[in-house]
Structures are given as C-alpha cells and as structure tokens.
C-alpha cells in the first residue's frame, strides 16, 4: 500500500500501466549491455561468431573467465588480469581509507572549529572537485619523481588521496554542518579536546556519510584509468589498465568471450560494493536534508 489517493477511473488505470510499461522497458534497455557481456563471457568462441548477441549460450562454459583471470595476454605477458585485480585493491583500499579519514577530519575542522578563512579554504577545496585530471598529469609526475614515488603503488595512492580529499571533504563538511554545534560546546565544557571530540562524539554518528564517501571513493579510484596508466609501472598497474592492454593485444584471434569476462572481473568489485551498501548510499546522501 502506498500513501496516495488516485482517481479510480479506467483511463487513470490505463495511464498508470502505460507508465509502468515504459519504466520496465527503460530498465531492460539499460540492463542490456550487462546482459550481453554476461552472455558473451560464458559462450565458446564459435557460438559468438555464429549466433546473435542476445542468444542464450548453447554450451555454457567458464573457461573464458579462467583464461581472463590467469592466462590471457596483457601486452607482453600472458598471466591474465588476476594479479592486476589485486594490484587495484592494493591501491584502492589505502587510498579510500586515507582520503575518507582526512575528509572527515577536514569536514570536522571546517564546521566545528571554525577559523578565519575557513570558508575560503572550503571554496578552494571545492574547486578541486572540478579540476580535470589531465591538467595535473605532468606536474604530478614531477612531484612523484621528486618524492621518489614514481611508478609505485604508494605514489598512486598519494595521487588518489590528493584528488579524493576534495570530494570527501565536501561530503563530510555538509554532513557535519547539520550536526548541532552545541554538541561540541558541551564536549568542550566536559573537558574533551579536538581529537577526543572527533573520535567520541562525531565519528560514532557519521556512519551514513562514511558509507557515501567509501562508495564514492571506491568507485572513482577503482575505475580510474588515466592515473593508473600514467603513474604505474608494469608491476603495479591497476586492473583497468591491464584490461585495456588485454583487449588491445593484437596477437592471435580476438577472443570476445575472454575480453568480456575480464571486463566483468574488473567491474565486479564496484558492483558488489554498490549492491551491499547502496541502500545506505542514498540514505547518506539525503541525510540532513529532511529532519528525522
């Protein structure tokens, strides 16, 4: 039961069914690429050549997935994307954790310990959300070189943290601005300091915005290609770069099923994160906008 009073005429009902039909049609259309990828990834190569894109596999096989994971050639090497998959995690996990934590700390300082120029600093940080990645490639390469972090996982983590802070700060600032300042005043009078208040008072109520920040950062960093291709060595490439190398490897036959399986592997973690935490994502984004 929903909470709306509707007209109960035949015309009104037909109109509603028409709306549902359009919505369902759109949803199917939107899902089509995923379906095609999934179907193709479990078909043998002969079936792909012979049949239509949407035909169900006659002899489903997981061999393309196995090949994509551990045997397919990515450029010169033929070890699959598996190793790069873990590379991505080695980059994403610290980068997400550090950028989210720093964003939370920034948001807290910008709202609860207001200092002269806080608004200006926040405006400048916001600006960081709009800087195109390409613009900073060269200066960033120089900086990483100077820091001795070129072609390393740590270097990529640093780049993603620096870029992520703008967004995470925005998220946390907007969340903390809705939390009453009196809470912080009370804690000050109780004798708690800057970090103690953050840790004991604000962090425990920040779960919704943490989810938002983590999902956002995870998706952004996992899907990054440009920084990955520019700042990683062969050993430290993220899965997106490996996928590109694999698809573009031009020796032998074009194995669409293996390509699709590799693409699915590369996309899976963000999909899983969103399915698991998507509910909280929406909740966190709208938190504070409506009371209660």
């Amino acid at each position, binding site marked *: 039961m929903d909470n709306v009073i509707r007209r109960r005429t035949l015309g009104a009902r037909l109109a509603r069914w028409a709306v549902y039909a359009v919505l369902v049609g759109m949803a199917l259309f939107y899902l089509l690429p995923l379906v095609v990828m999934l179907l193709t990834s479990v078909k043998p190569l002969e079936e792909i050549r012979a049949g239509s894109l949407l035909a169900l596999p006659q002899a489903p096989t997981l061999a393309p997935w196995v090949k994509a994971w551990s045997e397919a050639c990515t450029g010169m090497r033929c070890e699959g994307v598996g190793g790069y998959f873990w590379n991505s995690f080695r980059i994403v996990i610290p980068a997400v954790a550090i950028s989210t934590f720093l964003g939370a700390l920034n948001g807290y300082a910008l709202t609860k310990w207001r200092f002269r120029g806080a608004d200006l600093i926040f405006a400048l940080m916001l600006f960081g959300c709009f800087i195109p990645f390409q613009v900073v490639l060269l200066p960033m390469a120089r900086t990483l070189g100077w820091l001795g972090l070129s072609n390393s996982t740590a270097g990529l983590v640093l780049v993603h943290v620096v870029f992520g802070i703008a967004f995470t700060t925005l998220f946390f600032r907007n969340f903390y601005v809705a939390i009453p300042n009196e809470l912080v005043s009370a804690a000050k009078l109780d004798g708690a300091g800057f970090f103690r208040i953050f840790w004991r008072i604000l962090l*425990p109520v920040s779960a919704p915005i943490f989810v938002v920040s983590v999902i956002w950062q995870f998706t952004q960093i996992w899907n990054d290609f440009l920084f990955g291709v520019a700042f990683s060595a062969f050993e430290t490439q993220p899965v997106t770069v490996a996928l590109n190398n694999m698809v573009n490897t031009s020796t032998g036959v074009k194995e669409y099923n293996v390509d699709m399986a590799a693409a699915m592997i590369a996309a899976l973690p963000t999909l899983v994160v969103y399915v698991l935490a998507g509910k909280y994502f929406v909740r966190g984004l709208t938190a504070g906008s409506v009371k209660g």
Partner: protein
Amino acid sequence: MSALEIRQVRKDFGATRVLKDVSLSIDSGEFLILVGPSGCGKSTLMNSIAGLEPVTSGQILIGEEDVTWCTPAERDIAMVFQSYALYPSMTVRQNIAFGLEMRKVPKAEREEAVDRVADLLQITPLLDRKPSQLSGGQRQRVAMGRALAREPKIYLFDEPLSNLDAKLRVEMRTEIKKLHLRLGTTIVYVTHDQIEAMTLADRIAVMRDGHIRQLGTPDEVYNDPADMFVAGFMGSPSMNFINATLEGDAGAYRLVIETPDAPRLTLPWPAHRDTSAMKEQIGRRVVLGLRPEHFSEEDIRLTDQAEGTLLTAPVTVSEPTGADILLRLPLGEGEVTARVGPKIKVKAGDRVDLRVDMSRAVLFMPDSEQRLA
C-alpha cells in the same frame, strides 16, 4: 565571596558590538538570571563566561581567579543547553559520566556520581537508554544530570526549558528551584521568559542591546524598574504606558490624561513618592506606567482611598483567562490593559468603573525613557 565576576566585558562580531562593557558580580550560591529580548547579548555573555567565545576586552574571574583566557575545560563550569546537546551515540549513563571520564576520575567514583545524580533527578530507570529513546522532559533531566555530576564551580543554563511544552516547563521550573535551594549551587541562567526570571532568580539582570539595563532582585526589577524598557519587558501582560501632563507642585502633583471623546482624567500623585527631578517637568509631558493589576473593579476598597482614583471607560475587548479577566479600554492616546477579578461581568461595549492604584504607579521621561519617579 564572589563566585563569578565580570569586568567591563566587551565583545565585537566584526563591526557589531554585542556586549558593551558589561560588568556584574555574583555571590557564591546565588541564582542570577540574564533576561532580555533576542539579540540583546545574553547568550553571547553566557558563551563568554563558558569560554566558548573569546571576549574582545575585559576580564572574567571565577572564584577570584582570572579565567579570561582559559579554555572551557579549565574553567570548571557545567552548562545545560537549550537543545540539551546530549551525545547521541552514548547511553544516558555514558553521557552523565563523560565529563568525569575526561577529567580522569576513577571508574568507581564515576559510577557513584552517576548513581547520585540519577537518584536526585529520578532518571535511574533511563540510565541505559540512548537519548533518541527519551522524551523532551527526560532529555532535559539528563542534560541537568550531566551538569550536576561534575560538581563544578558554576552552572550555566542556556534557555533550558524553552523546548518543553507549557505544563512540563512549569514543573521543571519548580524542580530547578528546589534543586538550587537544596544544593546551594551558583547558577547563571539565560532566558527570554520573564516569568521564569521572576520565579527563579535571586537577582535578575535585564539586558538590552549589549547593556545590562537593570540588575536587581525580582521585586526591584518588577516594582521599581530603572527605565521604560525594563518596565515593559517584565510582567505579562506588560505595563501600560500612558502619555500624561505633570501639573501642580511638590506635595500635590497631578497627572492629567487627555483621552479622545472622553472627559480629561486627573490622577493625584501620592506625595510620599515625589522626587526632586519632578519639579523640572512641571507642565511637561511624562509617561505614566501602570501595570494591569494596578487597576481594580470599583467595589474593591483600596486601603488608601485617596490613591484609588475612579475611572470610567468603555470596554473594547474582554479576555477571560480563567483566574482573572483582562479588559482593554481606551485611556490617553491608546488603549490600556486592566486585570480584574473573574466575577466582573462585562462584555465589549459596556462601560466599567475601575479604580487606579497610584501608590504603585511609576513615571518616566518620554524622551530618555529613564525613570522620573
């Protein structure tokens, strides 16, 4: 010994001066109320005492010690906030104990303090709940409990009752008064509710535009207001201000009130309340201040007949409140409110005879709004 002393405190927010050289001193165990309309600086003064905002100049002393540049934690103050500001992720027990925990009080002592406070405020059954599971009145109690647990030098209350419904507000008001009598704590209490101020305070500081306009006992502030602002702010319905002309001479002053479409009214000023300043105002306009209860229905005999002058006027509105009736009637250039007993049967348009008790009337200068007599 003064528990709290404020010397010439000034506070600027950019170009606006919110506190203009405020000075006051509170004795140990005293209940001081800061009252005034919104924007008068009372909350800013409170935050300055708490150390939540630095002052621009001046000094704040707690127990004879200069704390002007001490952090809130170093001042040993507890505060009850309007929004209660309970820590949402902690239970009531943790909320109350938090201040003690921050001050590294051993666990056993903390538990003892929580039990003592919970017992005092009758919130023992709530100790393991989260603030979100409490009603407004219960949250209020917990907020007080948090302040009481630490036994600080001074308690600050920032409009603690304004989020409660009317009935609960009256109950909590009485309870706060009882607590103060029982514990003998020093309290600074901010409110914009003048009834709270009258009922709770040992002394009231009436503030406006960053100044303390009057500092005195509730009786002084109510019956002997320093200026028209204080007179009008304290009391509900508020004091009637009537333009009048001062005539006669020392010992026999009269106030003449012209009301359109009515005969002029002459009210004799009681001789024992003459002031020397009145002499210069003879023949000039003054403002007569009469509280609604200074009017009474004709059949009630006032003790001093000479001071109870008869007034006849048509009623424009009659507002029964249950305990008494408020009548609006034309007097001078505007209307006045009179509070009469509930038995009087009048409706709009009726003419009533009222006596005016001039022994409690006050006079103001019309321009400076300062007290004349």
